[in-house]
């Protein structure tokens, strides 16, 4: 079985995000970028499936700007076998919307004959949480989202999902799209031997046009703004003062 893992290049989670002065989005010029952390978990899970003999090949795919090949190299260094870069934008500020990404991924899945797609539940830049679900609809495949545990049992995938208030375990028919949550696994460190090996692994470069997909935006960003700065707190000496303060503010 081939496992396809879509990976997105996003602003690094350690970077303090700044909004562009015209409010059109987040400033990404000369900012440290890295693999979406949820995608890292998906890559790790795919590699574990391969190590367990369940998967034969792990293919990482990224759709975006040319620089995303660095993100793919990270996936290769972790242990993916090969990578496909679909160049769909020139400007790092142009985000490819979930529907366009899902349409391209659907084509790649068909072309590769993949039997499982492991994706991050969402990307930490736009938090859309949509690509996996759209891909499942486009392919007519089963979907299992927010996975915190995954087992492949013959023709089925048994997935434990993190849902509000607890865990839900479902069994879905393969082929399937599984979107992964934070607690599924802890991604490995990219070791030096694997980083060096990754340089020699194949990385195919394609364009959105190769798949005949129109990636022009359907959504319009109206405004992007910084979150309100938090007000400084106050330390109270005892419970009575706390209760008095809360009453004063009309909270209780």
């Amino acid at each position, binding site marked *: 079985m081939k496992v396809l893992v879509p990976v997105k290049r996003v602003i690094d989670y350690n970077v303090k995000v700044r909004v562009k002065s015209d409010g059109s989005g987040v400033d990404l010029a000369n900012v*440290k970028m*890295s693999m979406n952390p949820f995608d890292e978990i998906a890559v790790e899970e795919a590699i574990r499936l391969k190590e367990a003999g369940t998967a034969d090949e792990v293919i990482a795919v990224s759709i975006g700007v040319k620089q995303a090949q*660095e993100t793919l*190299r*990270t996936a290769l*260094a972790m242990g993916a076998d090969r990578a496909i870069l679909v160049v769909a934008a020139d400007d790092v500020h142009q985000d490819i919307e979930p529907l366009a990404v899902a349409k391209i991924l659907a084509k790649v899945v068909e072309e590769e004959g993949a039997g499982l797609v492991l994706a991050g539940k969402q990307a930490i830049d736009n938090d859309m949480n949509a690509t996996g679900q759209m891909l499942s609809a486009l392919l007519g495949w089963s979907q299992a989202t927010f996975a915190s545990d995954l087992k492949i049992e013959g023709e089925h995938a048994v997935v434990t999902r993190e849902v509000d208030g607890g865990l839900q375990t479902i069994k879905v028919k393969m082929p399937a799209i599984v979107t992964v949550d934070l607690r599924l696994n802890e991604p490995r*460190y*990219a*070791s*030096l*031997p*694997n*980083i*060096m090996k990754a*340089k020699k692994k194949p990385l195919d470069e394609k364009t959105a046009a190769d798949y005949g997909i129109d990636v022009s935006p359907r959504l319009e960003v109206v405004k992007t703004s910084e979150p309100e700065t938090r007000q400084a707190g106050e330390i109270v000496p005892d419970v009575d003062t706390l209760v008095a303060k809360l009453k004063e503010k009309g909270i209780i």
Partner: protein
Amino acid sequence: MLESFDQSEELQMFREAVRKMSEKEFAPIAAQIDDEDAMPDKVMPLLRDMGLVQLQVSEAYEGPGGTLLMNCIAKEEVARHSFAVSHLVGACDFAMVLPLRAFGTEEQRRHFLPQVATGNITAAIGLTEPGTGSDVSGIKTTARRDGDHWVINGQKTFITKGDTAKFINVIARTSEGTRGGGLSSFLVEQRTPGLTIGGAVRKMGLRGIKSVDLFFDDLRVPAENMIGAEGQGFKNTMHCLNYNRPTVAASALGLAQGALDAAVAYANEREQFGQKVIQFQAIGHKLAEMRIQIEAARALLYRVCALADSGATNGLAEMASCAKAFASNTAMQVTTEAVQVFGGAGYLCDNPVERMMRDAKVTQIYEGTTEIQKLIIARSMVA
């Protein structure tokens, strides 16, 4: 911390992987390693799996084929949390990888380097003796030819990692000679009859990495274990130092960075006279000065690495000395100032900066004292 502007994402990926490992695995045990003066068994396998023990062994000999720059990045990131553990990154470089690469025969490389490439072994260099230090001309350990073997007699002291090393590169006198002449280099395997490992000395810092005395009593080493030509041992070792001193600078740099990280975190937290102490100019400027030293040391170190990795040899020795001297002085100054930023809390043995200050001192002493580095730099400028 800002990443160096000129580093590829591949190097950044590598740095980040080592950083994550160091934070998770070594930060929690650094104090214990120092306290118990012992290296936990789990450390070597962690470094091995990351490819760090065997980092510079080339792919031709089954290693990962890392560069000196990578070695320095790894040492820096590990030393940020544990200076002792950073000594196991490239643990066979000075004694084996560098001399074999430069002076070994193809047969020797094929015999020894794949053993290093497993990442399971360390090696030590046996240079210093009770009567020698910066001046190696007084080396009294001798090697006498006997058929297809050499017979070694003598004593070495302060041999770092000498207790656990699988191989010891022993520099012994094979003929009379002035200054560094008449010395040769031999790879002696652990547990060879005639080798006695003495007790470990107690040190101010670098605890967890043992330094021991070694005694050689009619120890027989096969002639094929001589690395490089007879009589060239000192010259060859000096050559290898050009590639090893930058890695000492890297450990010193990591130590300084770790101390700055701790001092900055504390200064942003600790309040006096109604404000965070970082708001006081006296502390803010102190931290700024520490940062300036570190950034300069890092830039100098990477410059030397770029030079060495490019294959250039011209001017490398004095540049390596510049980086080593500057980074080790930086480590001493920055760790001392970090203790000052912490005030009374910094003087307590449970505080990491206290350990870092003790660790820093050795960087000005081993692998050629700061004074020797200046001597090398000064001599390179004599017309």
